């Protein structure tokens, strides 16, 4: 993801998403988020991997349809198994209706699954066994919890302790994938690689 991708998303999809009250990302400005994420994580001696998902339109050209910022080498959320993971910090999938009606993409892919697959594969290739974690923004309400549950992630019990460096109380909105879950999720998309 470059500044151009962020600018495009903010200009072309941002205003449409902003009017959808149920979307957790309705106030996100990727043009600000992208450099901000890099700076904050460099201050913590970590690196971000911002990614763009391009999907094919009906005319055969490619359109930006998903954006994410991953944090490499983040503490794994299951404190009983300390180690590293990739943390999906920000993740946004374009609204399927907008893609269909305004950008000529009749059959958008399951973008949530693809965005999570990116994180799993990068984690595997970084030697972190596919372990990932994320926090479902409260602005997404219960619907966002359902999305991550349907994607196959495991919800961290609200009573579970968190790694100290997470610096946020466990509000019951953390999800993760351990090695087995990650491998199973990745395997389901192997045919399309």
């Amino acid at each position, binding site marked *: *993801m*470059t*500044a*151009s*991708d*962020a*600018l*495009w998303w903010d*200009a*072309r999809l941002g205003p449409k998403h902003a009017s959808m009250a149920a979307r*957790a*990302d309705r*106030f*996100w*400005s990727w*043009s*600000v*988020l*992208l*450099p*901000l994420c*890099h*700076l*904050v994580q*460099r*201050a*913590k001696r970590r*690196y971000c*991997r*911002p*990614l*763009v998902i*391009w999907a094919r*339109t009906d*005319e055969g*050209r*490619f*359109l930006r349809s998903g954006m994410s910022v991953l*944090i*490499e080498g*983040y503490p794994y959320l299951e404190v009983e198994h300390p180690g590293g993971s990739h*943390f999906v*910090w*920000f993740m946004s999938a374009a609204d399927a209706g907008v893609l269909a009606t305004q*950008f000529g993409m009749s059959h958008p892919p399951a973008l949530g699954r693809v965005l999570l697959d990116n994180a799993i*594969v*990068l984690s595997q*290739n*970084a030697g972190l066994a596919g372990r990932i974690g994320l*926090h479902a*923004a*409260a*602005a*997404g309400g219960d619907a966002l919890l359902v999305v991550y549950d349907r994607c196959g992630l495991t919800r961290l019990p609200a009573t579970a302790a968190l790694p100290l*460096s*997470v*610096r*946020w109380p466990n509000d019951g*909105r*953390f999800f993760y994938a351990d090695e087995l879950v990650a491998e199973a999720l990745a395997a389901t998309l192997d045919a399309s690689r």
Partner: protein
Amino acid sequence: MYMLGSVSFMSKFMMLDAKAPATLGAVVEAVTRLSTLGEAKILELVSAGKIAELFPFKPAGDQPIPPDTMAEDELVEASALPLNRKQRDALIQSSLPVTSRKKHRLVSKG
């Protein structure tokens, strides 16, 4: 705390209200403050539309909006492997728009 490249990077922001260049000190201070927060807290602030209260800046730049679509052979696939330091630095630099180069007055040729 920051590398030299990050300092240069942080000087490329505009203040939101004044629409004037942000001072390096102000950006460093805001980033330092944000870095004391957890990622979930920052996610919540951004999602509530409140990040400007802690980071009242936007990147400076004047890039046009790119076209909606691209052909397959125009796309560059991201590496699925860990990046080296040079690749990471390039990724960070590419997160800010290119600013117009300042024009310098030429010397008179009398």
